[in-house]
């Protein structure tokens, strides 16, 4: 299997805090990979470094055999890596459809001159973006909200819209940061199905999620991060039976004093 995303000794520090510490990690084409870890473990920072929001302090990120450690976020998006955010980042004062259309712009070739003079190309591409945009909205099942302001949508719908916008980029890999947060159980089931469908069409997916059932039923491979470090990687079964992971989630059977000391060591 071909590797699509690879992190080599990836580190990201904020002052003295090592948010991501020496993480080695590979994602193969066509996989669904889960990233889990306690709150504040560095999962989102890991995503941010991969997508170029932060430059890595040291180490490298490789995407499809290209070193993208120093690339800007918009370049990385152009290469085919799309993502959603834990705290939703939509263009709140635009309509749902406009949000998705913005995702398509990267694929369009219309220039400013075209749009001022309404050339044939402009009209063709504008129709293309509108039609494709509606298709994306149907895909995630929110087409009835197309004309509403994104900021006024219910929370679960905003999450879906973020996925639709990411899909509009035509990505090869999709990074989802807690996509099921704030969704009710039936919405979560729909999302699960959507991710499976997308994956069966060949899209590689990396997902951060707190809902264990969600991760365990969805992912072929799971990466566990704690205090910025990779503590385990493997199939869901391997991960759940791993001692380190149990410790990270359930704590150790030690005195309170030892726990405090451990926290202090890591801080």
């Amino acid at each position: 299997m071909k590797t699509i995303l690879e992190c080599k000794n990836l580190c990201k520090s904020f002052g003295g805090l090592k948010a991501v510490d020496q993480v080695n990690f590979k994602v193969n084409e066509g996989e669904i990979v889960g990233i889990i870890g306690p709150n504040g473990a560095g999962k989102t920072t890991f995503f941010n470094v991969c997508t170029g929001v932060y430059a890595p302090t040291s180490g490298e990120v490789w995407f499809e055999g290209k070193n993208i450690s120093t690339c800007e976020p918009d370049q990385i998006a152009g290469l085919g890596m799309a993502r959603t955010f834990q705290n939703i980042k939509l263009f709140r004062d635009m309509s749902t459809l406009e949000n998705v259309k913005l995702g398509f712009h990267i694929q369009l070739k219309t220039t400013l001159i075209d749009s001022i003079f309404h050339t044939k190309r402009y009209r063709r591409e504008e129709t293309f973006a509108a039609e494709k945009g509606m298709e994306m909205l149907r895909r995630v099942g929110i087409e009835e909200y197309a004309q509403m302001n994104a900021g006024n949508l219910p929370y679960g719908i905003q999450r879906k819209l973020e996925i639709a916008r990411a899909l509009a980029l035509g990505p090869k890999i999709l990074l989802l940061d807690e996509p099921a947060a704030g969704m009710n159980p039936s919405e979560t089931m729909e999302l699960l199905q959507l991710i499976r469908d997308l994956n069966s069409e060949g899209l590689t997916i990396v997902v951060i999620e707190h809902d264990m059932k969600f991760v365990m039923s969805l992912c072929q491979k799971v990466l566990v991060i704690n205090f910025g470090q990779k503590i385990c990687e493997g199939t869901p079964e391997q991960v759940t039976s791993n001692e380190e992971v149990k410790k990270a989630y359930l704590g150790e059977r030690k005195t309170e004093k030892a726990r405090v000391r451990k926290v202090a060591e890591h801080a």
Partner: protein
Amino acid sequence: MYILEQILNGVCQGSIYALMAIGYAFIYGIVGLVTFSYGEVAMVGAFAAYYAFILFGNNLLIGCIAGIAGGVVAGMLIYKFCYERFLLAPKHIAIICTVAISQLFKSLAQIYFGTEVKPMASLFGGKYIQLGDLRVTYVQILVLVMVIIMASGLSLFTKKTQVGMQLRAVAQDKKAAALVGIHVNRMALLGNCIGCALGGTAGLLLAVYYGNVYATMGQAVGFKAFSAVVLGGLSNVGAAAVGGMLIGLLENIGIMFFSANYRDTIAFVFMVVVLIFMPQGIGTKKGYRQ
């Protein structure tokens, strides 16, 4: 009929301030920083138009192009010096840079264009239309028409074109914009230049309206545009325009009661009052986070 005339004057001046306020709010929205060099952008636009009139005869179209071009060039320089390297740095760095570049522009203008007040070409030779008791000069009509064209042009541009949509996206969320593949720095440059084009046009209109240009003309109008934008709630373009119009009207109605010497005082006292009683501006919902 003195009051009607003053209201007409107020509307004309107010619409120039509104045009500047629109450009200013546009820049604030896209770059995310207040600028203190905007008045000098207007000054550069006015001088560009002044020299264009001298070189090419009193052709309004060429004057407009020169004014806009002057604004855009000034905008590019401001972007290069103040924003390009400092977009992610603490905000005060870029803001102090804009103060510096404003002084630089002003001083260079005094060196190269001279310190004296130069008479602007009279485009219409004082022609006017008599509407009942009210006398509407061609210059006033020009001002109103230009402002309406520029403002609605900008509105159409941001709503109907893809580039406009990308600009709005950058204004709303830079991080998300970058991650849908929008080149945020390029958009910041473009947004700054568009805002400055409006500033340059406003400079041209000011010069034509008052019939003169001088190197320090940008100072007061720059701060009035800033007041208008503060009144409107910083990034709200529509409310900024209303703010500009209000300041123009207030100034001209104010000088009926006080002396004309207090023109600027009235505008700035008004701003202080607004800051005390309505610090969030008229265009921002309470509790809405920028």
